[in-house]
């Protein structure tokens, strides 16, 4: 006995509210996302953070030595020297000590001890150079004997026990690092150790794409 036929409206109240709220939440979430997108600062590559390049002279990492080139007399078998590459960036001389991966190990081994997969052309007078930054989670490695793997002089990470055999391209001899330390090809020129190029493999904390683009930049310079 209803007086009026109840007509179904095209849009129920519930549906209207749901759509309205959904839209509001969506717009809100989007604007929030734009804020979150902004929390990552743009990459700024300061000169000190650039990759080592061909022609860079290796200088003492020890701050007390004021960036003097590493003397050949200090590089002996069984005694490594830590160094940074120093070279021209945009005309000015820069010690590239802005990132841990640029700290380098200069090691010397007796004739014939260094074997593949080391890049032998990148060694000179038994001197071989690697990045000091562990490929696992980026701690600085130490150089010491590691008898349990028969290594007289190995790069050993104090963080989680990554062990690298420096006579064989810093291959991972023990522990978790997913890749060998990155080697730098060098030549001894006029009593100084001079880089002949940048890292031969991907060093720590850089993506393939970034590595490729930074290398391209080096070639341009």
């Amino acid at each position, binding site marked *: 006995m209803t007086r009026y036929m109840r007509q179904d409206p095209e849009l129920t109240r519930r549906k209207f509210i749901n759509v309205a709220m959904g839209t509001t939440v969506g717009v809100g979430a989007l604007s929030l996302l734009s804020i*979150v997108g902004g*929390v*990552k*600062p743009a*990459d700024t590559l300061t000169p000190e*953070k650039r990759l080592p390049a061909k022609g860079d002279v290796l200088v003492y990492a020890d701050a007390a030595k004021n960036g003097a080139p590493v003397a050949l007399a200090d590089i002996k078998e069984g005694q490594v020297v830590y160094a940074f590459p120093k070279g021209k960036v945009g005309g000015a001389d820069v010690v590239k*000590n*802005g*990132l*841990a991966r640029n*700290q380098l190990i200069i090691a010397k081994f007796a004739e014939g001890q260094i074997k593949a997969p080391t890049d032998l052309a990148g060694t000179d007078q038994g001197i071989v150079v690697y990045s*000091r930054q562990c490929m*696992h*989670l*980026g*701690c*600085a*490695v*130490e150089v010491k004997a*590691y*008898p*349990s793997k028969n290594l007289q002089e190995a790069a050993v*990470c*104090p*963080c*989680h*026990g*990554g062990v690298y055999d420096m006579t064989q391209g810093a291959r*991972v001899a*023990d*522990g*978790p*690092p*997913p890749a060998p330390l990155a080697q730098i090809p060098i030549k001894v020129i006029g009593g100084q150790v001079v880089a002949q190029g940048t890292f031969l493999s991907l060093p720590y*904390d850089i*993506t393939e794409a970034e590595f490729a683009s930074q290398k391209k930049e080096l070639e341009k310079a």
Partner: protein
Amino acid sequence: MNQWLDDRLNISRLNDKFLRKAFPVHHTYFLGEITLFSLIVLLLTGVFLALSYEPSTRLVPSFLDKTQMVPAAYSSILRINFMPFGDMLRRIHHWSANLMVAASILHMMRIYFTGSFKKPREINWWIGMLLLVFTIITAVTGYSLPYDNFAKTTLGVVVGIVASVPWVGDWLAQAAFGGKFALDNAFMIPRVYGYHIMLLPAILLGLTGAHLLIMIKQKHTQPQYAKRIAYKKIVGVPLSTQQTPIALMLAFLMAGIVILFATFIPVHPVEVFGPASDNPVANIKPDWYLLWIFGILEMIPASAKFTLFGGEIGPEFIGGIVIATLTLLVMLAVPIFDQSKENLYYSENPTDHPKRLAGGIAFFGLLLVWSVAGYKNDFQWPVMPFYVLSVVVPLVLYFVTIAIVRGIKSFRAADERDMAQGAAADD
């Protein structure tokens, strides 16, 4: 005055609803309270530390040696150490953080072994888990603040673990820590500081509030003796006023012990590690509650890596995140394994549930094996024994526990028979 307040705020209702809540009296029921008190001490000491700490990596002349340039954060910690009671404040903050983690783990063990996580209290088990995880994250961010070389190395490893997440890791790490990890990254310490003193404490307080409200709503499980005194009745002392002095005594006792520790055992000597640098720290170890993850990181071999849909999955990710997450998931899942439909009133005797007891002990055995693996590096131990121990130790603990419980049970049954015979003989 009560009347005046009551007229305006209706506090008598608050009194009836919350302040009269009955607390069971049993020593293991105070572990949660100790966790809460440590949180309060951390908040109080933290506020005072924050008043003098400078969250910045900017280089300034060192507080101790003006000729040396060190990060401002590091210098400000040196200054705090020289303020009246400054070092003491740091020590109390540090020891309370340790106590908070220890107390929450023991609290959780109590809940687990007595079955208190069962229906209807599953939600509080999950909230408790989150509290534990966030407490540990808060402690790790706190550790990074002094920005000495130890802090910097820890932070570097944490950033590295975040960055190891496949596909999004690089972006995630740079978003969370303000760009790539570098000594002079100006955003990094301010970000970690923000997390440590605002975001994470806010999360902890929110979760703690929810945890306590749910506990009041659902009431404690009752200790076994309550069953004998008054079956299915809540037995305990009311929060106001009888429980309050007990809790206060406990709080003062705890504060006293923490202060004793703080007086005699120094914490984190920043001068020994020196300011943040790119040099290694020998024998670096995390705090005891993270040693198990550290051990896993050492155990995952270099070969554990593959590419999946363009994402790199490596030993850093598996060791730092995957295994730890799985372990936490197992803990989260604990209430799901329980099938009971009835609400639980009384704490259960652990030996009445030998499988649960044995499972818990085996689990801790596993964490212990992984923690010991954290020392593998120092002794140049091979990794293989640790894989074997990870299987053998939990299994052995499991079956030994079950055997011991059976033994106890049969002794008890024999005792009861003797008693019954004795009683019969007396008649």
